[in-house]
């Protein structure tokens, strides 16, 4: 149903010019109405088009603020490290572990990696024991090498059940892992920890296990 007559009651309107003044040239009333409706919708689209373009107008600038705190993380620990005899009888049991880490320190901060025996060997069974060495001189010791960020532990360290001991020290201020200068090129950083356990003849034969926990800290 078309309503050109009502619309053109006001004969000077643009709508009237479009919809009413041309019916005789365009044929039937039905065809007229279809053309009139199409024209009307095109007009509506034209009128609303500027509204759409306004959505792209810059509204101002926003500052994105990101605060990176000092942090350190350890990666890829093997579940077990098996110490084996490397050479002659009553030589030490030995084994190596690669510790992977990422660190970010503040401009005045530093970072360290430490290790502690959180579960000792079962001392009561007569094998190795960290807390109370079966013989003076028995120990689970380690050396550190190849730290790609920070400094290797100094010399030979003895694992303790009561205190964490250093693996990597002096991760410097404003340090970060990966990407090259000013960060390290290595990603992740690594350090090799070489363990030695005294092979005391006093140890009873048998399998023994202890759990070592590594901790990284960064400020």
């Amino acid at each position, binding site marked *: 149903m078309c309503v050109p007559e009502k619309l053109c009651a006001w004969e000077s309107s643009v709508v009237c010019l479009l919809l009413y003044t041309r019916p005789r040239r365009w044929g039937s009333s039905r065809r007229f109405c279809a053309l009139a409706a199409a024209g009307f919708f095109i007009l509506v689209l034209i009128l609303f088009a500027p509204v759409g373009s306004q959505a792209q107008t810059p509204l101002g600038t926003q500052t994105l603020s990101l605060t990176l705190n000092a942090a350190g993380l350890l990666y890829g620990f093997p579940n077990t490290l098996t110490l084996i005899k490397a050479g002659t009888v009553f030589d030490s049991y030995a084994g190596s572990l690669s510790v992977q880490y990422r660190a970010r320190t503040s401009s005045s901060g530093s970072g360290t990696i430490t290790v502690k025996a959180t579960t000792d060997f079962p001392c009561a069974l007569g094998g190795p024991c960290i807390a109370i060495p079966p013989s003076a001189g028995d120990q689970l010791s380690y050396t550190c090498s190849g730290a790609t960020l920070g400094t290797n532990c100094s010399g030979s360290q003895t694992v303790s059940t009561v205190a964490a001991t250093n693996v990597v020290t002096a991760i410097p201020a404003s340090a970060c892992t990966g990407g090259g200068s000013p960060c390290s090129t290595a990603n992740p950083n690594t350090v090799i920890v070489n363990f030695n356990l005294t092979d005391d003849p006093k140890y009873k034969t048998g399998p023994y296990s202890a759990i*070592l926990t590594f901790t990284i800290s960064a400020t």
Partner: protein
Amino acid sequence: MKGIPALMAASLLLTASPANAQLGSTTGATTVDVTVAAEAALTAVTAVTNLTSAGTNFSNYTGSTSMTYFIRTTAAGGSGSLTLEVTTDFNCAAGGPCVAIPPTSGDALSYTCTVANPGNNGTVTPCAGSQTASTTAQTSVATFSADARSLLAGNSAAVSWTLTNDPKYKTGIYSATVTFTISAA
């Protein structure tokens, strides 16, 4: 349309896995395993033992070889042994003493044993009485019980030698090599 959520979920899982691989922790734990097995070793074996004759003429040549042993035998059912063997005989053709073919019946390189008990556990049984060294077989110096465990610094053992002073021996200097072997199971 029902397939789309499932596809999206699968995509999320696939993208999540690499992210998890990057996750770290401020701590990491590793179990340190060690299997303590039976073993034994000798150190500080006297390199050269001179046999000398003291006192009356034709008294036997005597001397002593000392050593330090380390041993750990299996706790249940284990054992150990310390033996010796003459691996290089005296120069028999030179007319002196000879272990393999004694110049005279009764000539012998014999020994007695003194072995301290393992310092930490178990017992040792030194050779009984006088033993005759051989070039063809290992002869006992001591045997060890199950769960024998020496000191960290080791325990002492010694062999006291006696060589017949047979007038038949030509004068001269003669040497033989004796090899000690310790084992544990």
